[in-house]
């Protein structure tokens, strides 16, 4: 076998798999062809000896943080919104019940001495709530006041719940 024949067989060999055994005989007698054969052999095993680099931790963390956010905001927005909506509705209902029931309940259930004792603590809060309460009562007396007030309150509570659920560190940690 000549060097030309050797190189032609090497060229025509399939790109993967074992090389024709006939090449080894000539390679043993010719240094240049031996190098060509070893080069081809090493190329075919490159997967075994290749170096595998890794991304620095901070770059991987950047991508994984994006994955967390995307997973929560985009991959299942329906579920997250639904959960937040139910929570907001329950919270609003509890607030409304407390608003309606608590003042009269407190008067009926609590002994007058306890009310008098708590007055220094509750009066500042009640004074602070007074303007809000009067504005709420005024809004409720308007034609679309009650539905608008309800929707606004729901939107505010929903946003708060949504932000808390999605962004809270405890939620990240749990995942």
């Amino acid at each position, binding site marked *: 076998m000549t060097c030309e024949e050797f190189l032609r067989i090497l060229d025509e060999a399939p790109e993967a798999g074992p090389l024709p055994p006939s090449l080894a005989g000539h390679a043993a007698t010719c240094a240049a062809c031996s190098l060509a054969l070893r080069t081809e052999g090493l190329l075919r095993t490159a997967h075994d000896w290749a170096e595998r680099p890794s*991304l620095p931790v901070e770059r991987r963390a950047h991508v*994984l943080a994006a994955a967390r956010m995307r997973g929560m905001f985009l*991959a299942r927005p329906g579920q997250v919104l639904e959960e937040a909506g139910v929570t907001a509705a329950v919270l609003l209902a509890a607030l409304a019940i407390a608003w309606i029931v608590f003042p009269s309940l407190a008067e009926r259930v609590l002994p007058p001495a306890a009310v008098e004792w708590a007055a220094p603590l509750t009066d500042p809060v009640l004074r602070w709530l007074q303007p809000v309460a009067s504005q709420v009562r005024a809004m409720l007396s308007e034609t679309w006041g009650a539905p608008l007030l309800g929707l606004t309150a729901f939107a505010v509570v929903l946003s708060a719940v949504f932000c808390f659920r999605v962004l809270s560190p405890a939620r990240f940690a749990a995942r």
Partner: protein
Amino acid sequence: MERLPGEEGLVRRHLSGDPRAFDTLMRHYEPYVLGLLWRMAGERSTAEDLCQETFLKVLKGLPSFRGGSSLKTWIYRIAHNVWTDRLRAAGHEETGGEEHPAFRAAADPRTPLGGVEDAQIRGALEAAMARLPRAQREALHLFYWDDLSVEEVAQALSVPEGTVKTLLFRGRRALREKVALQLGGAP
């Protein structure tokens, strides 16, 4: 490259909001993607930028991934497109890499041919890869370094299988010639 076992399940878990699933996917594919981009870009820091960008695009594209090709070739195609876009944005064809680890292990060209070690040939092979035309380099890397089939390389590069075979044929020959020149054993 080995296919990641259970990757369909991981994709489903990611799409249902489990970030650990993407972590697993990324840890498996990242070394291969970074290796390819390092090979193509020639600089580690550029390759890291491109790799990060690739996985952000993978993340963005996973909800619309329909499994027409394997996840592996789909990720490689994104990496290929990210690199191509970067070249286009830079407005020039790439130059060969000079910082790939291959160059640190490059062989001494004056070594007598009879005593050439495998490590020297590997170093010369890696150095020669950096001097190949981009298309040949990419096809050879995917086929030999990352162990993709011809069909998978074709999918990753969005070219016909015949083109891949031609690139491999010419690339192998060019590599042998360059290694021989570097190690003093020109045919």
